[in-house]
């Protein structure tokens, strides 16, 4: 099972990097999102995967026992998902503003600091 998820992570990384390397700003953002998903999956995988055993203590028990999914990667990914929402929103708006001011979507034309370029 892990091997397939590892391959999927690789695919997410590869497509993320590929999209970031495009010149279009929209593709840049899509690439960042894909890459972020890849990272989430990577963290998830490193906590090992467990089927059907969520890290929730049974109502009759006082502690998690036996086989259970690792809660730490989950906590990490949960924050990562929410943060990346903020990041995406900010990036989208940044792109929108840049497009409005510079009238271009081409990242290659953003390589100077001059305002009037």
């Amino acid at each position, binding site marked *: 099972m892990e091997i397939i998820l590892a391959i999927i992570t690789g695919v997410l990384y590869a497509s993320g990097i590929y999209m970031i390397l495009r010149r279009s700003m929209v593709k840049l953002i899509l690439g960042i999102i894909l890459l972020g998903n890849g990272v989430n999956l990577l963290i998830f995988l490193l906590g090992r995967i467990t089927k059907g055993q*969520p890290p*929730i203590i049974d*109502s009759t028990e006082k502690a998690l026992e036996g086989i259970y999914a690792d809660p730490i990667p989950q906590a990490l990914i*949960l924050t990562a998902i*929410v943060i990346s*929402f*903020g990041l995406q*929103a900010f990036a*989208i*708006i940044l792109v929108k503003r840049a497009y409005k001011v510079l009238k271009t979507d081409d990242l290659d034309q953003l390589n100077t600091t001059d305002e009037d370029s």
Partner: protein
Amino acid sequence: MRTIILKSASSYLLPVLLLFSVFILLRGHYLPGGGFVGGLVAAIAFVLDAFSNGLDKTKGILKFHPGFFMPVGLMIAFLSGISPMLLAGLPLMTGIWADNPIPVIGAIGSPLFFDIGVYLVVIGASLTIIFTISESV
């Protein structure tokens, strides 16, 4: 997007979804859920309402700018964090709990208020982002 079906459904959907989000928030300590998801669900409820009834009406329901949720939520979270220091002389972020659990909600303690703070911040941030964008696009 303003279909009659969505419009009539949304007037019922908003309170139901909001209630659902509070439910998710409160059960978070025992079952899947919590402030993050609850906040996002609540935000989606408002966005849905805005889609069907128009942004101005949704804002009318809210009475104030959603951005105000953010400082309020942060303040609640912060106070719940320092409350053990003030109330019981315990270190920062130590959980303090009421002795008797309340029906439906369960045990009341400072982490619950912390989660409420998170809930409010998430609503505030998501709505600020979405409303700002839909206003200026």
